């Protein structure tokens, strides 16, 4: 039976000498990454949880002030390494907004397809890992089998499975070919079966449902008050999806639904993620069949994209353009201003606040990481639940420590 939620833990309950203090992490299989929780327990009931983060802090924002607008894409890749393409899209979306660039239709579509593939990848990991932590091993393997197919597509386009670093200011590293189109078509064809298998394994699974339903309940008011976004907020009934509310890339062209739930518990977050994968497949199917032809990079006259090898070696304009962008004292000349741009990453609103001083590198490259905001919720969600629910709540929030700490 699902446990009754203890409303609020009294102060005097915390001082009892029979309470236990348990150090959860920083190295624990269920935290997946490096984060630490200090739990105060009465028997198996968690009275208080104090998160301790920063184990993976590596100064990404400081590095953003030292690397230029193209180089920094390799660093943002490593923030949320489960769906790195969203970080790239978010970074270059903001940079292009700052510079006032309008992407070519083909670039928008390719970015959209890859971003939605990354979303499926992220949700599959989240769902598979929650199930694994709660004791269901098969569904984890089913999920990871599909993730391989997505990684294969990323490898095809960029040569890198994990960190594609595929976007550039005003375009992409290179154009995609027919192999990519064929692989995406195959994926769209085979993925629904895997998602249906997962659904059948988990949706009515007695153990899974008992361990996630009514656990870690977040109400709509709290979700708004605590700055939640993405599937965590939508599972609590907040109807906000940046793909709908502030359409970027090519999302305006596609027919898809915003997935919401009302319950706000771990089970609702799981259901929202499952349904979002189907919507993502829907978007990919529409995008790949309507992939526009034409260039992927914005016009060379704009002097913002690095020309390809043929243009660099065979034309004087291309050579000059390449030189202008590569030399550290030249590069881009964005307006001296500041700009916030956000995209809907699988975890929620992923935004960058760029302050530009008119040179080729950002003066300040602030990242608004959804994991950071969502992990702040954790003590609130776990209070009064049992210690075995810690992994269910952690998994359903999908905390990626590299993004949390940056």
């Amino acid at each position: 039976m699902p446990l009754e939620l203890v409303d609020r833990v009294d102060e005097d309950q915390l001082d009892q000498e029979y309470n236990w203090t348990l150090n959860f992490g920083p190295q624990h299989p269920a935290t997946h990454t490096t984060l630490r929780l200090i739990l105060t327990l009465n028997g198996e009931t968690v009275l208080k949880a104090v998160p301790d983060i920063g184990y993976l802090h590596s100064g990404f924002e400081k590095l953003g002030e030292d690397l230029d607008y193209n180089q920094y894409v390799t660093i943002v890749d490593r923030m949320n390494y489960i769906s790195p393409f969203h970080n790239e899209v978010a970074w270059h979306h903001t940079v292009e907004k700052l510079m006032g660039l309008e992407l070519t239709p083909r670039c928008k579509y390719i970015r959209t397809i890859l971003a939605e593939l990354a979303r499926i990848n992220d949700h599959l990991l989240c769902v598979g890992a929650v199930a694994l932590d709660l004791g269901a091993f098969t569904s984890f393997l089913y999920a990871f089998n599909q993730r391989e197919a997505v990684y294969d597509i990323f490898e095809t386009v960029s040569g890198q499975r994990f960190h594609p670093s595929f976007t550039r200011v005003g375009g992409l590293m290179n154009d995609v070919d027919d192999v990519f189109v064929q692989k995406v078509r195959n994926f769209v064809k085979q993925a629904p079966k895997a998602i249906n298998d997962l659904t059948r394994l988990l949706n009515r699974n007695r153990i899974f449902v008992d361990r996630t339903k009514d656990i870690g309940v977040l109400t709509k008011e709290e979700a708004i008050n605590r700055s939640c976004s993405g599937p965590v907020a939508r599972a609590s009934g907040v109807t906000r999806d940046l793909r709908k509310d502030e359409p970027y890339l090519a999302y305006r062209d596609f027919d898809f639904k915003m997935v919401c739930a009302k319950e706000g518990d771990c089970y609702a977050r799981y259901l929202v993620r499952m349904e979002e994968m189907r919507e993502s497949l829907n978007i990919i199917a529409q995008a790949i069949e309507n992939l526009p032809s034409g260039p992927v990079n914005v016009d060379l006259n704009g002097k913002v994209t690095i020309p390809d090898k043929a243009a660099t070696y065979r034309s004087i304009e291309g050579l000059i353009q390449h030189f202008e962008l590569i030399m550290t004292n030249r590069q881009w000349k964005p307006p001296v201003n500041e700009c916030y741009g956000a995209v809907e990453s699988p975890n929620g609103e992923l935004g960058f606040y760029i302050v530009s001083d008119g040179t080729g590198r950002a003066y300040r490259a602030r990242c608004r990481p959804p994991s950071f905001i969502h992990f702040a919720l954790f003590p609130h969600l776990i209070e009064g639940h049992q210690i075995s629910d810690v992994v269910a709540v952690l998994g359903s929030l999908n905390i990626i420590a590299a993004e949390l700490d940056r």
Partner: protein
Amino acid sequence: MSTVDQLQQQFGSAIIRTESFRDNVRVIVTPEAVHEVLKHLKESLGFNMLAELTAVDYLNYPDAVDRFGVIYGLTNLDSGERIFVKTYLNEPDLTLPTVCDLWQGANWLEREVYDMFGITFAGHPDLRRILMPEEFVSFPLRKDYPLRGKHERHNFPVITRAES
């Protein structure tokens, strides 16, 4: 009447100026008025979500007058509108009132700003370092903090094998 006009009418001289760039609307307010403005935005104008809270060190910025800027990004979930409230701070008085009483989500965001820039938030329930270790004495995202170097190790206690 737009949000910016309403704010100007309500607060008058507390609003130093307004800027807009692309789709960002920024309202620059005095540090004393920042809590009042945010409270008004939340309670009367429907900006119910604090989406972003960050700071910028303008030490080497071209034509900068003030040292630090603190930026609050608010979202109106009904209309989808965004507004950025910005305030400037100068040494030695790097203190702002906390907005944890308005949004609980501000808790960790303010801790991060404190950790990285040394800007303190008066009335914050738990203002500790969040990403850097507690023994750390500097504020790494300030522009006078170097990118490279190895001069922090002496600040950390040495734990011998017997003690560990």
